[in-house]
């Protein structure tokens, strides 16, 4: 290998890397440019008309928010609780190995399989029907590993001395966790929760089978109602709508709102993490 070939190889690797960056940039640019022209106050605040060909997407936004709130209400306590157990209580026993295996498995289950599972268990077996409740529970199962992994990481980042000091003063284990661990790992847990929300908000396949209604120009009254949701709305408008070719602006608008929601959440998570990293330094 001589110097010129070395330089050529380096150059081509740099080119490939920046080609990927360009592709990502172009995707964002395309959605933002075309979506921005569709955005106005009416679009986000009005009910859809003519099966979504005109009007707004207000019920889909509300539906997605309901689903996200439901998902977090279920998965956050379970996820954080599980993470605390794994990081503070569990030893290297068989139970621990089993839980870790389960988390890895859950993280790899395809989203459509979560949809089938939710359909079989929550919609049919539990009798919730196609509803916010069934959809939220399904999404909660799906984001559980994300939340556990992020929370456990932030718990482990708290120095061991904090634990020892508290226990040496006679605190019980739970007192130690409550006063000396949780306050310092909160930021990491919030980050995990937000990442989970982002994933739940953008998923289509699980809600397709458990909650989503395409055209429901009214707001849900209870957790047993169906809702519209942004990702499903986009899917239907783009592929199933009889006027799909003529309502590209409605599709781009919906895509942009969904993208802003999900990327906004990721950005928020990153900001919170850097803020707290600066605040707690040991």
């Amino acid at each position: 290998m001589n110097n010129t070939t070395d330089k050529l190889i380096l150059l081509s690797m740099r080119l490939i890397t920046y080609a990927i960056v360009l592709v990502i940039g172009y995707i964002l640019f395309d959605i933002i440019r075309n979506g921005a022209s569709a955005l106005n106050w009416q679009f986000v605040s009005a009910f859809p008309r003519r099966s979504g060909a005109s009007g707004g997407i207000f019920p889909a936004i509300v539906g997605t928010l309901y689903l996200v709130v439901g998902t977090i209400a279920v998965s956050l306590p379970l996820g954080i609780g599980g993470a605390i157990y794994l990081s503070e209580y569990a030893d290297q026993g068989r139970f621990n190995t089993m839980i870790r295996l389960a988390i890895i498995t859950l993280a790899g289950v395809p989203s459509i399989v979560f949809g089938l599972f939710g359909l079989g268990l929550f919609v049919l077996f539990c009798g919730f029907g196609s509803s916010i409740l069934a959809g939220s529970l399904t999404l909660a199962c799906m984001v559980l590993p994300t939340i556990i992994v992020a929370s456990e990481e932030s718990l482990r980042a708290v120095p061991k001395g904090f634990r020892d000091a508290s226990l040496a003063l006679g605190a019980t284990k739970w007192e130690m966790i409550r006063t000396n661990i949780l306050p310092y790992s909160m930021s990491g847990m919030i980050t995990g929760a937000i990442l989970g929300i982002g994933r739940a908000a953008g998923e289509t396949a699980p809600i397709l089978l458990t909650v989503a209604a395409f055209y429901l120009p009214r707001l849900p009254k209870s957790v047993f109602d169906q809702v519209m949701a942004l990702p499903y709305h986009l899917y239907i408008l783009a592929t199933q709508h009889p006027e799909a070719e003529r309502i590209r602006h409605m599709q781009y608008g919906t895509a942009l709102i969904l993208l802003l929601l999900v990327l906004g959440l990721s950005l928020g998570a990153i900001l919170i993490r850097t803020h707290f990293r600066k605040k707690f330094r040991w």
Partner: protein
Amino acid sequence: MSRSRKLFITDKLMRLLLMGAASTSVLVVCLIFLFLFKEAGPFVLNPGIGKLLDSQWIPVSFQEEHFGLGPLLSGSALVTALAMLVTVPISVLVAIYIAEIARPDEREFLKPFIEILASIPSVVLGFFGLLVVAPLIKTAFGLSTGLTALTGALLLSLMAIPTIISLSEDALVSVPYSLKNASLALGASHLQTIFLVTLPAALPGIVAAVMLGIGRVIGETMAVLMVTGNSAILTFSPLASVRTMTATIAAEMGEVPFGSVHYQALFWIGLILLVITFALNIVAQRVLKKYGMMK
């Protein structure tokens, strides 16, 4: 009750509560397997498991329904193989660039920027594919439609790229400095060290990354549903329209009567997907563990 007694009881109670929370994951995994089996099960007795080996997938018909999984398996395999063909070389090269060559400030920009790709919802990528990538493929190859296996593969590769880059980079960074330094000290160039020492040493981690990437690609639903054209035919041409296992479930589940044979067949597809991704996951973890690359 004394204060210390109260504290003692709270402590024990919290321990149990947290243990319960941790067990949910195990419970959910068991329930997933259980309910997929439960819904798919009756198919084995009637019409019999042999029906899944049929060569055609025609679940709704006036004459005879066919529930052969072959065309769907081949659809998934074709799209996944094409996607990996594109993804693996690109991802590994980019991972090497980020881990070994990029300046620190460049790295600080590249890593989060590529992560953005992972957080774009798959339905949005599918939409982009439908409106931008499919027309490109159509004109480039002079086809009557741009909805092909190749279109799906390109989009899937966009989804797998961030996963594989990030995991491969972890593997590259975890190679001990002593190895790299020894190679440099023997007079090898920077690139020789990367390709002859660092890359081989990180190979198990990269293999595991690729396996996890395959798992993600094979289970991806919305993007392939939107851009592969969805005709259930047995083909190995990248420019043909195909239908994957995931897309079949998503497209047909809305219209089947619950409990029907068709419904059970769709659960069979789900079960097969679950087993494939489960196996890929377990093997990848084994590889990581064996070579001490577990985080």
